[in-house]
């Protein structure tokens, strides 16, 4: 497998979901992989299996008390007040049977992807079940119970002392959990570009959040205006991400590839299209080759238009990870398989037609504000990164 791309997955990862009408639906993982397969993009890439993360793995970044509460909740136990205190139950993170095991599997899969890449057994690896970036040390938050990237980074640091990990998060929501876990750590650079927290969950991720103590400068946040489109987002990404990564000189890059900034996404107010979700992984891939011999682990993340957006966006992600051309058309077989179930008409092309996404009247103003934000952030953090 050396020099190759690996995809870490097995069916058991699809048991992480909250059931019913909950927007975080593992069907999106299934449909993405079906689309990749129908397009022939999985030929020669058998799924790599993984072990669930252990309690010891999880407590690298979570408190043992919290892990015990999650275990108990998944078996139907726990006091209501206690559960609420830990963010469990209620709207966003309802309790489901064996939730500890389901989430520990996701964490284990991302950990395996990182180990494959760190040991040189694969150059790039993808695990689209990962990307649970809101999970906090002792609290479930925003559909995330355990923090896969957090655990993986903590373990990489133990297993490869001195390793420098860059975490690049382009989910529409701020990557708060991962940021807080490494907020004072100069060996972990977290970069998050997201819709401004003025209105949107979780509310953090302002440009002035830059890290703490020895880690000042190693947390980078670019809050984008609501209704930011591809061209503004891409130009901010290009102005900032290559510069900060070059200054940091990572040994490995982990990307969180949430695709909920798409114009069709019901949870956010951004206006991106598949153009962004094709561009970002390609550029992260280039930067991984430029800076760290290709070592790159890609995870999923948010994405709540599970029919029209997620399968195409993450198929583009896999195409970048595995150095394959992204086909022009959505597979007819896949459309036949899923079209009838879909509550919305499924697109027939892998790339959105720009004509369907007219620029907003305020687009120039939005782009100007984003450019200023990016310049200000870059000016503040760049001198601090060594």
């Amino acid at each position, binding site marked *: 497998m050396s020099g190759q791309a690996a995809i870490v997955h097995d069916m058991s990862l699809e048991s992480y979901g909250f059931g019913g009408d909950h927007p975080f639906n593992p069907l999106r993982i299934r449909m993405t992989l079906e689309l990749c397969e129908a397009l022939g993009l999985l030929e020669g890439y058998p799924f790599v299996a993984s072990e669930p993360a252990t309690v010891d793995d999880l407590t690298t970044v979570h408190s043992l008390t919290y892990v015990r509460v999650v275990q108990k909740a998944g078996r139907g136990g726990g006091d209501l007040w206690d559960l609420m205190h830990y963010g469990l139950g209620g*709207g*966003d993170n309802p309790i489901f049977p064996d939730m500890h095991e389901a989430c520990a599997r996701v964490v284990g899969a991302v950990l395996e992807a990182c180990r494959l890449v760190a040991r040189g057994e694969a150059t790039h690896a993808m695990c689209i079940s990962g990307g649970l970036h809101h999970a906090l040390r002792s609290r479930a*938050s*925003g559909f995330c119970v355990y923090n896969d990237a957090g655990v993986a980074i903590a373990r990489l640091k133990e297993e490869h002392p001195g390793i420098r990990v860059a975490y690049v998060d382009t989910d529409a*929501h701020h990557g708060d959990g991962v940021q807080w876990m490494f907020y004072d750590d100069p060996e972990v650079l977290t970069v998050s570009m997201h819709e401004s927290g*003025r209105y949107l*969950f979780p509310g953090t991720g302002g440009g002035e959040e830059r890290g703490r103590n020895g880690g000042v400068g190693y947390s980078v946040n670019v809050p984008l205006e609501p*209704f930011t489109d591809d061209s503004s987002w891409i130009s901010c990404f290009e102005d900032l991400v290559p510069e900060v990564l070059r200054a940091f000189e990572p040994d490995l890059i982990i990307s969180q590839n949430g695709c909920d900034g798409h114009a069709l996404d019901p949870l956010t107010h951004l206006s991106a299209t598949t153009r962004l979700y094709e561009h970002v992984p390609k550029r992260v891939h280039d930067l991984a080759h430029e800076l760290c011999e290709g070592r790159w682990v890609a995870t999923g993340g948010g994405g709540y238009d599970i029919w029209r957006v997620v399968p195409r966006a993450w198929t583009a992600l896999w195409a970048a990870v595995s150095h394959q051309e992204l086909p022009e058309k959505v597979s007819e077989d896949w459309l036949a398989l899923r079209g009838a179930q879909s509550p919305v008409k499924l697109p027939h092309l892998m790339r959105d037609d720009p004509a369907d996404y007219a620029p*907003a*009247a305020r687009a120039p103003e939005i782009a100007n504000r984003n450019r200023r934000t990016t310049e200000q952030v870059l000016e503040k953090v760049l001198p601090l990164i060594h």
Partner: protein
Amino acid sequence: MLLVKDSMTREVVVLSPETTAAEALAVCRERRVRHLPVLEAERLVGIVSDRDLRSAAPALGDPGRVEALGKLRVSEVMSRDVVSARPDDPIEEAANEMRERRIGCLPVVENDALVGIITSSDVMEALVQLMGAHEPGSRLVVSMPDRPGTLAGAAGIFGELGINLVSTVSGPKQEPPPGEQGPWRAAIFRIDTINPAEAIEILEQAGYSVLWPPKP
């Protein structure tokens, strides 16, 4: 909650009237403070800021400046007419006092003894806490007729959906939206969910006006 004593700094750096301006400025630098109460026999007799001290001496670059700062005593510069707060004052009262008098801090005095100091930064910190801005959540501005029960109605909708409130703040009266009878009032809800879409839909159906990001 939200009393001066909840937000004030209890370990206050103080000066004596005999301290020189040079020494006082060194204290400001080392302790990273800008406002220093002046005590004489345990009693508060004045207050001085780093700016007062600097502007009392000849300008920077003047050859006489260093000598002047070494001679100048705090008692010559401090303001003697000190406005103070009490520990049990509501923080908004202290904020209003600072705003009206255009000052950056208030010493906190109880039974003639200095027990703390509250600055405009402490008030900002209290605002952040009040708004719940340090806890994950979505921020909704909800406008409603200024009538009994409307705020409870909005809060009840979140409750029905199982969404916890991180913070709730209700603002002053305002003009009603076009076509409505006034007055209205806006409330800011910080709610513990990544997915406020359903709550917004139900609020709007129930006649509330939800201010959300400006239209594209």
